[in-house]
């Protein structure tokens, strides 16, 4: 079993962070994982994106041509990455800032007003975690338990309350997931 995940948004929206959380979640549940950032001069105030592979077998080729699922947090990313999701795949969209024209019918597009939800939770920059929650049920090898462990190892140790907030955001997101 394998999950190939694409994550994209602005620098500062915490794209790399949710990638790390998922990779950790996979690792803590003894799957093979690898987290691949995109890097380069485009960085300069541009979009940030990374991909995560979670697998129950050794991960040889870490090159993702098409992904099973993805999360996009802003418009440019949506346009750039919607084409890279496999037919039958799932794409979570932060509908608060992305107008997702239903350009594809062969994949499930989950629209989550993540920014609003995050604002309600009192932390605008938790939109990423909300979207992560919305994607969870579409993943084979990690779930909200492993995510909890992951968030605790990464954030928790330092600031427990922040940890709670993050998990709250995840749970809000889960409400939007396809079951």
């Amino acid at each position, binding site marked *: 079993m394998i999950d190939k995940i694409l994550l994209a948004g602005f620098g500062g929206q915490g794209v790399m962070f949710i990638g*790390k959380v998922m*990779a*950790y979640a996979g*690792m803590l549940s003894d799957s*093979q*994982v*690898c*987290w*691949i*950032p995109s*890097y*380069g*001069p485009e960085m300069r105030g541009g979009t940030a994106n990374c991909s995560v592979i979670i697998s129950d077998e050794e991960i*040889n*080729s*870490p*090159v993702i*041509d098409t992904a099973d699922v993805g999360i996009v947090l802003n418009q440019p990313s949506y346009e750039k990455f919607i084409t890279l999701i496999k037919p039958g795949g799932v794409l979570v969209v932060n509908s608060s800032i992305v107008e997702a024209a239903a350009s594809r019918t062969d994949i499930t597009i989950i629209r989550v007003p993540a920014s609003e939800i995050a604002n309600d939770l009192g932390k605008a920059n938790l939109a990423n975690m909300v979207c992560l929650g919305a994607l969870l049920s579409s993943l084979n090898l990690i779930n909200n338990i492993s995510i909890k462990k992951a968030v605790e190892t990464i954030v928790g140790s330092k600031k427990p309350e922040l940890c709670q907030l993050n998990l709250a955001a995840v749970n809000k997101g889960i409400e939007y997931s396809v079951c």
Partner: protein
Amino acid sequence: MDKVLIKGNEAIAEAAIRSGCKLFFGYPITPSTEIMEYLSKNMPKAGGTILQGEDEVASINMCYGAAATGARVMTASSSPGFSLKQEGLSYIAAAELPVVVVNVNRSGPGLGGLGPAQSDYFQCTKGGGHGDYRLIVLAPSKGQEMYDFTMQAFDLADKYRNPVLILADGFLGQMMEPIELKERPAVNLPAKDWVTNGCRGRNKRKIASYALTNEIGEANCMYWQTKYKQIKEEEQRWESYQADDAEYLLVGYGTCGRIAKSVVINARKHGIKLGLIRPISLWPFPENAFKRHISTVKGIVAIELNAGQMVEDIRLAVNCKIPVELYNRQGGMLPTETEIFQYVSQVFNLKLPEEG
């Protein structure tokens, strides 16, 4: 033992610390900078010294000085910065100083791009600097090997009094994978009875690399060559996968090596007898890995992130007895499994496997 999720560059840095590396001299350059950044945080805690030189030339020559005292020392850079170290590396090799060097290959020539590449293969394996010297070159293909090979590099450097190079690429440097932080293996190494650390209670020593006469020069060269010959005999390293019964072989190192492995697994599913040889030591090139296959293998495809460099060493290794084709991507691009698989089937016209 539990694992940590860190970048390949950070794995190299952590391994250096745990190998007893006490000094690092470097100059930032993408995509190798995390090595220096990680060490800036953690080297001091470990009682080591890290210094950012004014440039790569300074850094490599600082390594020369530190190594002359017998301390374990490392530097790291990427292609353009690595080019600037060539004179220094030649001097280090000639003075027989154990220094570990990392080149996180980015695409060139010139300023080029930051994407992963293997376009420095010749520069790293045949000597980018002047004169007949060799670096021992190790090519990791995943985070854990970034860690393990770095530890081995320090021991090899001390064992042979020779600079050792870790040749990675931007992809391996930036990618995060779970790393097991193994302890440094116990090996017994020759005493460093040659170091210049002050001549208290002994005769003065000197470390230099010049030859006053051509006769001395030739004697030096011949001595170095015997050392290199020994390394060639003792340190060839590679991974073979499904090679024993293979009719066709993929040969790739680093990132290409692991992608190629996927291709082999997939091909076997389709009943194609494809195997893999993944060179680990690029110098010495693992000629021994090929010997036993020369009579059985029908064709070889070299997978490289360059215009075709290692392919020459493969041809020489098989004594030109097997056709060696090249499938390559350049400029920072990576091949997908599918691409490679298609190329292999087509070049050796194997019947394309049905989908699924």
